[in-house]
């Protein structure tokens, strides 16, 4: 993993960037914090923030020309925050006596300041504080320069006098009535280590470095109005402060230019979308200065500009309280650890990899891609926790085993000729389709693994529909596209899977794949761009729906788009056309189509962090009062398990008589296996009229499993076949423990990398299961075996 590139991506995230008010403030008052303190009624804390950043805060706070206000984002929703008025209120309610500061010995160098105005005084005070011996040359008989022009209601003469006296009281030498001209300046430059020129005007034009304010490579530095060509007081003070920094760097012989790109006014990269905020008008003052209450109310209008778009949309980022920049720093740290705990693993495996973050980001930063790459890197380095994705990968292996996997061409005309009789040949589209068979497979129906697991009874109907409606022969291909391997970061396994699919495609002379699962669609787009695909839903729109009169009760549904189809707007339209054609109303969710959310299955978060998965489910199902309509089997199963009435598109297209389909429970993990096997058996028997090669489940024990135990079995990712295997071994070899008091047995068996334990009681011919659990740790029993049967 390229960590430099990763960190660059993190640096692009604007979450941490300052708001435009602070960036436009020449001294960078932390305005959001400042307003937050006021909001809480902590005027003294707000005052401290002014003291920290603002030179002569008692003066400037009263006369500032507030360049922060005009660009305030609030201006687009009611009016800018009255920051300047709030500063005045804070000076009124939050001021406290300054702490006595013990002056440093003045041994760092001698600096002359020409001009006792605001910028010169700022430079003088800053350098004095740092231990420089400062001398001010002022042409009039008082300090302050044009500050005296501001005396009025906000800033009294008394206050200004007081502030100027405080300067005179310091160990700063001040020469009044001291006019400095070109000739005198030349002398000062030789007498002093550095000179600051802060007069409003000068005899001839002066060119200074725009960053360091240094004139050429001399010891002369410029600031104030002469440099700024503006009468802004806050800009004057800022330039005096920046000149002081340059002088100190110059005299300390360090770089004058290093990391100074954000001094003074700068453009923040932050972008903020205020459109969702309700407009609020500014609070009007009822007196010259805001009352405390008015100030608090005005401060409350601040929206605290910070880009949180991806975080607001993503329950994963919110759960871990992570912005992309912080997330990336954690990944970077985790990737660099050689010895020690990878604390970020759980987080990295809790992302649904749904891609909403990129969709929401102003800068298209994709945490999905970052996290995916991280998982691949973890797998490569052997640092991926096995338990996170083990079950899902075994499930994938099951789907690609002979227990589910199947490839068949459409039954040939020759094989089907016994069907070509009246009335079948006239009324069955399927038989008509078989009759038109050419032997060349134009299409291959690839239903994926989860749809057959959830909708075993519909796969044959869909296949027959396809044979009857699309032009050309339709074959079938059962298997798993590899989505679990992709999500788990298992590149090797993924590539193997892709090659296997490609091989079938080539052998079948490159047919178009008909896909029904949104994860398959995503995987084919990502890994198999050479294969032409069509979605089943697009075909229904093009060829017409299979059944008429399906609607039971007309109602309004909210469509939850599958996150794997985010980019596929044609598919979104097809689904909506089908829903409308079936007679249902549609009410769109706020996060819909390209901005849809994940149901909680994506990225295998369902297996890696069930709590996180549940959070995805509950957030999404809370977004609409309507019943939901989905077109991905896992979305349906998760939403129903979360208690939400949810229809899968197939529930509406192929309505069943028995039960309420919107509340039909998700099949258990074991049932999903059985359902897939059953689909294969049904297809072989009823379409290809072949005798099944193997029985689905043979010579099993009869189990009685109480509901609470059943739930544990599911939550612990344990299959019925695991339980059966434990019992078979225990019964055959007596490898078990017994409890004479209760008559219970406890048996174990290691299967692959997991040891399964079953506590049971025998009841005549059946087994009452008391509890089932597992662990991955291997117990090395003394005879050298590990309790397994291999």
């Amino acid at each position, binding site marked *: 993993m390229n960590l430099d590139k990763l960190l660059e991506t993190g640096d692009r995230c604007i979450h941490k960037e300052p708001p435009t008010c602070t960036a436009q403030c020449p001294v960078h008052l932390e305005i959001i914090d400042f307003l937050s303190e006021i909001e809480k009624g902590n005027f003294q804390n707000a005052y401290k923030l002014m003291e920290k950043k603002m030179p002569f805060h008692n003066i400037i706070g009263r006369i500032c020309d507030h360049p922060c206000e005009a660009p305030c984002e609030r201006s687009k929703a009611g009016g800018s925050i009255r920051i300047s008025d709030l500063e005045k209120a804070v000076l009124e309610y939050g001021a406290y006596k300054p702490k006595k500061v013990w002056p440093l010995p003045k041994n760092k160098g001698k600096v002359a300041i020409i001009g006792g105005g605001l910028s010169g005084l700022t430079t003088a005070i800053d350098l004095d504080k740092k231990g420089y011996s400062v001398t001010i040359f002022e042409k009039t008989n008082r300090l302050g320069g044009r500050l005296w022009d501001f005396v009025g209601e906000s800033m009294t003469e008394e206050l200004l006098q007081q502030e100027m006296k405080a300067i005179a009281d310091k160990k700063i030498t001040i020469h009044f009535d001291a006019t400095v001209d070109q000739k005198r300046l030349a002398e000062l430059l030789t007498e002093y280590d550095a000179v600051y020129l802060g007069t409003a005007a000068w005899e001839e034009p002066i060119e200074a470095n725009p960053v360091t304010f240094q004139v050429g490579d001399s010891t002369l530095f410029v600031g104030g109005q002469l440099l700024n060509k503006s009468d802004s007081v806050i800009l004057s003070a800022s330039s005096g402060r920046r000149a002081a920094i340059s002088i100190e760097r110059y005299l300390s012989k360090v770089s004058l230019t290093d990391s100074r790109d954000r001094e003074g006014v700068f453009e923040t990269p932050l972008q903020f979308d205020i459109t969702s905020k309700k407009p609020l008008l500014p609070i009007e003052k009822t007196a010259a200065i805001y009352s405390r209450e008015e100030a608090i109310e005005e401060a409350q209008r601040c929206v605290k500009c910070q880009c949180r778009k991806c975080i607001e949309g993503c329950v994963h980022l919110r759960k871990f309280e992570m912005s992309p920049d912080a997330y990336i720093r954690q990944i970077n740290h985790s990737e660099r650890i050689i010895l020690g705990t*990878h604390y970020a693993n759980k987080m990295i495996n809790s992302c649904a990899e749904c891609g909403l973050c990129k969709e929401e980001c102003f800068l298209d930063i994709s945490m999905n891609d970052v996290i995916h790459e991280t998982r691949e890197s973890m797998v490569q380095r052997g640092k991926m926790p096995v338990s996170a994705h083990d079950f899902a990968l075994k499930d994938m292996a099951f789907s690609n085993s002979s227990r589910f996997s199947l490839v068949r061409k459409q039954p040939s005309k020759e094989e089907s000729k016994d069907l070509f009789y009246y009335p079948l040949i006239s009324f069955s589209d399927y038989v008509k389709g078989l009759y038109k068979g050419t032997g060349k497979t134009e299409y291959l129906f690839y239903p994926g693994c989860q749809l057959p697991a959830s909708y075993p009874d519909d796969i044959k109907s869909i296949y027959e529909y396809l044979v009857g409606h699309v032009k050309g022969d339709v074959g079938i291909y059962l298997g798993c596209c590899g989505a679990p391997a992709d999500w788990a970061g298992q590149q090797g396994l993924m590539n193997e899977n892709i090659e296997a699919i490609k091989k079938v495609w080539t052998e079948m002379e490159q047919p178009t794949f008909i896909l029904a699962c949104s994860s398959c669609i995503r995987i084919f787009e990502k890994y198999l761009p050479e294969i032409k695909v069509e979605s089943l839903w697009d075909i229904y729109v093009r060829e017409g729906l299979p059944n008429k009169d399906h609607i039971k009760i007309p109602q309004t549904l909210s469509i939850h788009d599958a996150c794997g189809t985010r980019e596929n707007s044609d598919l979104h339209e097809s689904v909506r056309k089908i829903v409308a054609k079936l007679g249902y109303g549609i009410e769109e969710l706020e996060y819909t189509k390209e901005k849809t959310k994940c149901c909680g299955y994506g990225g295998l978060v369902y297996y890696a962090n069930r709590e996180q998965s549940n959070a995805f489910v509950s957030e999404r199902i809370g977004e609409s009062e309507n019943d939901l309509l989905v077109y991905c089997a896992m979305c349906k199963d998760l939403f129903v398990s979360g208690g939400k009435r949810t229809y899968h598109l197939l529930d509406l297209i192929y309505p069943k008589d028995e039960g309420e389909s919107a509340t039909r429970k998700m099949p258990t993990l074991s049932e999903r296996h059985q359902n897939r096997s059953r689909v294969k058996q049904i297809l072989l028997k009823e379409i290809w009229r072949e005798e099944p090669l193997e029985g689905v489940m043979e010579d099993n024990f009869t189990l009685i499993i109480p509901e609470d135990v059943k739930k544990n079995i599911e939550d612990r990712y344990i299959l019925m076949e695991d339980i059966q295997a434990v019992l078979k071994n225990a019964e055959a070899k007596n490898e078990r423990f017994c409890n004479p008091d209760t008559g219970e047995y*406890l048996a174990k068996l290691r299967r692959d990398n997991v*040891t399964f334990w079953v506590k049971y009681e025998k009841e005549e011919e059946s087994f009452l299961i008391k*509890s089932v659990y597992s662990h991955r740790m*291997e117990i*090395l029993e*003394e005879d050298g075996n590990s*309790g397994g049967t291999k």
Partner: protein
Amino acid sequence: MKHESNDQTKWLCDKCQRELELAKVKVRYMEGNFEVDLMKCPTCNQVFIDEALALGKMKEVEEGLEDK
């Protein structure tokens, strides 16, 4: 990872019909190899692990090792 609960004292090895005894047992996960005191049959050596241990301390250790 020492473990001894009240419950397991009642259990016998069904194969050997012997009471279980606390003994040092070698366990392994990923690159971690260590010895812990667990209940086992003194004859056939099969080790007893109850639900609380498997889902508690054992899982914790497994997770800790996985994140190393």
